[in-house]
């Protein structure tokens, strides 16, 4: 791997944060950039970038990010500015909000899904109140 010679502040890629398998956070995680969680977080997470909850990871608390991918366990609501992906290994209990939500086969999910999307023209109007 080639590294830039001037690496005083950049000797590792600190734009991508990782909370490793052996790490537990009790409190809030906020900030800019991406975060990969492999360990445990008890408290909220609020990010501008992408949040990945890896298989084996556990978050208890509400989660807010640009993009959210969940393969681990989440107890709390998700609010994404972009897409939310729930992988097969995930266990999610809470409400999901995002531009689009995908749920893989095998995932456990209890909650509401609120995806903001535009209905295609043929479904708009005329069928209102079709409950």
């Amino acid at each position, binding site marked *: 791997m080639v590294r830039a010679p001037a690496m005083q502040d950049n000797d590792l890629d600190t*734009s991508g944060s990782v909370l490793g398998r*052996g790490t537990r956070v009790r409190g809030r995680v906020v900030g800019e950039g991406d975060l990969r969680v492999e360990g445990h977080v008890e408290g909220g997470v609020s990010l501008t970038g992408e949040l990945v909850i890896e298989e084996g990871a556990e978050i208890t608390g509400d989660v807010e990010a640009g993009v959210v991918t969940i393969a681990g366990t989440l107890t709390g609501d998700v609010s994404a500015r972009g897409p939310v992906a729930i992988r097969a290994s995930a266990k999610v209990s809470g409400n999901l909000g995002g531009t689009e939500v995908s749920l893989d086969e095998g995932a456990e999910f209890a909650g509401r899904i609120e995806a903001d999307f535009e209905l295609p023209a043929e479904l708009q109007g005329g069928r209102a109140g079709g409950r």
Partner: protein
Amino acid sequence: MAGTIIGSGITIEGEITSDEEVVVAGTVRGKLSVDGGVTVEGGAVVEADVAAASLSVGGHVTGNVSASDRVDLLTGGRLVGDVKAARLTIADGASFKGNVDMDV
């Protein structure tokens, strides 16, 4: 490779416990208890009591520090708080205010 990296844009308020290496490039407020080594990068801010096997400070740390092995205060690093460690180095250009207990 480090097990946990708290990137430069990230702030954690609360308690962090870990049994692996932790690199802080962002901000940590609260408490940091690590069985492995802790590296506080230049530009990072830690306002927390830190307990670790070893601690390397290139950024700013405010809080009491205890290390079972060693504490290294690097050039440009700043540590305000009491240090309890078997070994301590303070590099030229580092700032330090606090008491040192080397357990003699």
